[in-house]
């Protein structure tokens, strides 16, 4: 590389030259440090594979114990429905104490008990069936209750169709799930992973790298060179921006081709808003490192204000509307909720501009604000 000849160059050319040199230095640093590559490339791939396959809220083959105390044909018929269902792995258990012991040992997640007077009560038109569920995992327990209720309804309908004098449910609820007809939890979990991965690269990695520069004093050393603060930040963050974009494309590709999540919106819009979110996280990472100047504390804060909220407070897993008002207000300050709304809409619903425009605008405003704040925080320490 030719050293800048100073006087012959216009200020702009000098600026570009300095930025280029910095980017080159930073890129080499990223490429040569195995841990950055680990988190920039290996991590996204590993994460999307692990979580894409590992995270699932689709409950199938729930082990349940069936205690059949009534040997009548009616009761057997009732139980047969459960034994055939793909949702249950029903095992007949001779006695209630035995079933309870299995539940205590968590060998089964539920007990269905058909008492000895079932067929007699059925003839009278009022037969109770007892369902006990293991409540520790409340979400799964609720899904099991729903499945059992559904199996029961099907059984009643079958009987009614067979001409048995059975009143079936007077009201039939027909539900339709828009955007995800098959009710596959990957459809929202995989786009949600993209949020986690970009947050990780943008905020966590950047905060860590910058805090290290502060800790070692190499940042101050840069200040005595002719390079300006803005140029330093630009040069330093560009390689991470590129890493983030690579991670993003890896995620989109695997979402589409590996997990077969439909991409109904335009990929250009998706890339655009993802870059906006990447800028927001870069701004957060820079700001955190400039304010803390310590690797350990920067990593803790980055974890606390970027990664965990992206997982818990973004609408990725948990419904934002159901949170208490104070926490709901907090989610509006965090960028992740806007990006999750964008991702879920762009992947599953399509280009719905009334969702895209406001959310993207908030992200753009946050990116601008955070990057300016990061610049200011860096500048102040120069004095």
């Amino acid at each position, binding site marked *: 590389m030719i050293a800048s000849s100073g006087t012959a160059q216009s200020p702009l050319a000098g600026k570009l030259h300095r930025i280029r040199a910095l980017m080159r230095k930073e890129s080499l640093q990223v490429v040569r440090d195995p841990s950055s590559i680990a988190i920039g490339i290996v991590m996204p791939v590993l994460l999307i594979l692990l979580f894409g396959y590992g995270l699932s809220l689709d409950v199938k083959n729930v082990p349940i114990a069936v205690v059949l105390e009534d040997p009548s044909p009616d009761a057997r018929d009732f139980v047969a429905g459960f034994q055939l269902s793909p949702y249950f792995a029903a095992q007949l258990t001779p006695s209630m104490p035995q079933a309870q012991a299995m539940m205590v040992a*968590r060998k089964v997640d539920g007990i269905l008990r058909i008492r000895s007077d079932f067929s007699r009560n059925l003839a009278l038109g009022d037969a109770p069936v007892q369902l*006990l569920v293991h*409540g520790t995992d409340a979400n799964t327990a609720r899904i099991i209750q729903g499945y059992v209720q559904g199996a029961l309804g099907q059984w009643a309908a079958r009987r009614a169709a067979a001409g048995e004098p059975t009143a079936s449910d007077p*009201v039939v609820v027909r539900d339709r799930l*828009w955007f995800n007809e098959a*009710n596959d939890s990957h459809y929202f979990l995989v786009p949600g992973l993209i949020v986690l991965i970009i947050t990780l690269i943008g905020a966590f990695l950047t905060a860590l790298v910058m805090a290290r520069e502060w800790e070692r004093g190499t940042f101050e050393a840069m200040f005595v060179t002719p390079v300006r603060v803005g140029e330093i930040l630009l040069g330093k963050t560009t390689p991470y921006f590129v890493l983030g974009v690579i991670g993003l494309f890896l995620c989109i590709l695997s979402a589409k081709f590996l997990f077969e999540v439909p991409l109904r919106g335009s990929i250009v819009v998706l890339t655009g808003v993802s870059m906006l979110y990447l800028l927001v996280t870069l701004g957060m990472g820079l700001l955190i490192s400039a304010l803390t100047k310590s690797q350990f504390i920067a990593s*803790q804060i980055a974890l606390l204000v970027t990664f*965990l909220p992206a997982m818990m407070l973004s609408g990725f897993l948990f419904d934002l509307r159901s949170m208490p008002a104070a926490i709901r207000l907090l989610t509006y300050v965090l960028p992740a909720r806007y990006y999750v709304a964008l991702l879920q809409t762009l992947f599953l619903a399509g280009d719905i501009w009334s*969702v895209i425009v406001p959310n993207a605008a908030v992200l753009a405003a946050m990116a601008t604000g955070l990057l300016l704040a990061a610049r200011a925080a860096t500048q102040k320490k120069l004095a």
Partner: protein
Amino acid sequence: MLEALLRILALVRKELLAILKDPRTRISLFVPPVMQCFIFGYAATYDLNNVPYAVIDQDHSAASRDLLARLDGSGVFVRVADLRGAADIGDYINNQRALLVVQIAQDFERQLSSGLPADVQVIADGRNSNTAGTAIGYVGAAVAAFEAQWQSDHGESGPPVQLVMRAWYNPNLETRWNMVPALIGTLTMLQTLMLTAMSVAREREEGTFDQLLVTPFRPAEIMIGKALPSMAVGITQATTILLVAQLWFRIPFVGSFVTLYTALAFFLLAAVGIGLLVSSVASNMQQAMLFSFVILMPFTLLSGLTTPIENMPVALQYAAAINPLRYAIEIIHRVYLEGAGLSQLVPDLWPLAIIAVVTLSAAAWMFRNRLT
């Protein structure tokens, strides 16, 4: 023997001072876990309570109004609009103004009165299919209550079979009862592992590790000296979160504290072992942090904290066998909610013991071989 003990004590004292002397580190060890515990205790729930829904009532009958009144009065649903026709559904669902649209056909009451099946259509925004599924379940419950009322009002017999449901260990099936105790393990592990990984890496980066090596300490003593303070911090954090769970969230603790703390000791030993192993591999703080993060992320997400382990493919379930957090969460749930004793926890304790032994001896070996 006594000398070795004194040496270890001195090292523990030095480590504790190093951890606790910096006020910012002190704060970052205890404030974030408590904050997270509060925020996630409130936020991390699959239970719904503020579901915006829209209505298309084409029947306008007493029966349809009664059914809708049940939805409005459930405390779960908030009616945001009465739509005129199916053409408006797209607008409300697409723009996320409503999670559900409930449509009641115009012959609803007539069908009911003549004993024919009456239709209720529910259209849900499936962008988060779990939330949508839960909301549809709530509609189903409201409809069932309406049916029972209708049938008893009209002298009809109810459905022939009723499901009597009861949940063990968590009678109201609150996600919080599952989540907050699990945080005792999760948050403690996040910080214990990182703290341990960083403590050796810091000494290495600052060059004080070499000084430590020329002292009379043996590698094993150095390791114990590094492990004990981290475990102490971990136990303190776990206690703090336990207190928040019991005193703030009022989740009843039915087990024994002795059992819980014994199991936590096993767990923390495994976490510290992994931390030491990471720090023996990493050559500086940044690497230590990144490596621990690369380990912690999958450990946290594949621990059963947010989605059940049983839902994972079999291969991943085997891979999760090396994850100490999944055993810890299982143990904490069993002790906290179910009141299990130590003997029932053996299947979860021995994997933790193995993880601890393997990681600690591997770390010791690495130290000895990198010392030169």
